[in-house]
């Protein structure tokens, strides 16, 4: 699904080019849940932008779905640390925003509006926001806004979901709750996910593979498969193989930060 081959990217910084990524290689299979971890500023968000076609690599090739990426990929859903909901739209209208842009929904948006609304309501049910469709975003708590933001990134049934620290601003309980929401949605739809996170437990709980990046300029220095049986229960987080994995990941990143 995703293939980065020796990709480098330099931003035109104020005082000369800033090399954010250098020689990054990564492969994510269709339907795989991949997590990317690494020290702050190592180029994780940059990696996401490359994959979704928002920036072009300075060197190397980015392929999505077998095709070289030359512009916005048009099939990705994205969610970030901030929910970025539009305050002048109700929750359900926010969810329908992607449908106003992506084909084939876009062309028949007017005629099928009711159908799409029902689709949105159903998605809200799955994340525990039943009945909140007609509220405005500011009437929701931070965690609820984040759920709505997840729904918005999923409404057009994207083949690829890009998540950049979507749970980082939440409290521990809400976060674990949303892990389970994410797990259930993914088990059901099996789209490809790239999740950037600072939370190693989150990566270990959700992902099939964890890619560890070096300090800037970022490179993938290690990819690990996580083979806990699915569907995973939150209890797995307290098993000793899990804590061992988290521990190794932690040491690896500490090591990278030193270098």
């Amino acid at each position: 699904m995703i293939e980065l081959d020796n990709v480098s990217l330099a931003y035109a910084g104020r005082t000369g080019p800033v090399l954010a990524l250098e020689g990054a290689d990564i492969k994510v299979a269709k339907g795989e849940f991949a997590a990317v971890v690494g020290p702050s500023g190592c180029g994780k968000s940059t990696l996401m932008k490359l994959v979704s076609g928002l920036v072009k690599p300075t060197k190397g090739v980015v392929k999505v779905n077998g095709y070289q990426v030359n512009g916005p990929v048009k099939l990705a859903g994205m969610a970030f640390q901030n929910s970025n909901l539009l305050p002048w739209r109700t929750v359900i209208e926010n969810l329908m925003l992607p449908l106003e842009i992506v084909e084939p929904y876009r062309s028949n948006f007017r005629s099928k509006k009711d159908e799409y609304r029902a689709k949105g309501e159903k998605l809200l049910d799955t994340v525990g926001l039943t009945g909140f469709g007609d509220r405005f975003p500011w009437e929701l708590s931070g965690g609820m806004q984040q759920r709505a933001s997840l729904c918005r990134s999923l409404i057009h049934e994207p083949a690829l979901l890009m998540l950049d620290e979507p749970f980082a601003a939440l409290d521990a309980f809400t976060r674990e709750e949303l892990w389970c929401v994410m797990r259930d949605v993914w088990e059901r739809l099996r789209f490809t996910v790239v999740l950037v996170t600072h939370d190693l437990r989150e990566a270990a709980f959700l992902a099939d593979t964890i890619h560890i990046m070096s300090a800037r300029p970022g490179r993938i220095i290690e990819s690990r498969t996580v083979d806990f049986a699915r569907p995973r229960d939150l209890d797995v987080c307290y098993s000793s193989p899990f804590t061992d994995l988290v521990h190794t990941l932690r040491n690896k990143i500490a090591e990278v930060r030193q270098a």
Partner: protein
Amino acid sequence: MNRNVETLAPWLFTIAIFVVWELICRLFNVSSIILPAPSEIFQAAIRFWGPLMRNSWVTLWTTLAGFLMAVAFGLLLGLFVGWSRTIYRGLYPVMIGFNSIPKVAVVPILVMWFGIGEIPAILTAFLISFFPIVVNVATGLATIEPELEDVLRALGASKLDVMRKVGIPRAMPYFFGSLKVAITLAFVGAVVSETIAANAGLGHLMTQAGSNFQMPLVFAGLLALAVLGIGMYAITAWIEGRMTGWAFRSQQSAGG
């Protein structure tokens, strides 16, 4: 109960100011050439009711004409400037430079071009008031959260889509907020221009009355200006509240 006091307070204060003013004029025997008492001003207002109304009307429509031109032009230019961050960065200093020219200095030029009359007043009102509209609309557009733009572009949204779905609705509170400022400035522009060169309007009436030493009439003109100014401000403020309620309510929310 408390609410009532709060809504009444501005009226009470206004009346109190007039009462104190009247008292000062009477106690210290202030000459009406220096500072006429409110009672004299109201008398003058009644005596010259016709001319006051006629000139108020001229000032009102020149202000509104200039203001509407400023709204149309300001919206268009604001959309253009805010369209891309590059244009925004490039044009912003130019506009600041333009805005720092005192527009009063332009009035004589306008008079030379268009002659004495309403047109210089309209144009001054326009020139002085379009700037805050441009800046506000452009800022509203140019400060779209980059992440939100990424979300939309990753879906294949064009620049026009981003502007229609996010930029323009987002700029609306900025736009309506700037109307309050713009109408006040347009009013200032129109009156200043009338004072310098016109044959109608409250500014003209006041200069005429001043040169005839009819101070009560000058102050009656001032009073008319205050009423007009407050009225126009109140209407734009009301429109702002009606059109962009979500912006106020979302600011009060905890979730941000």
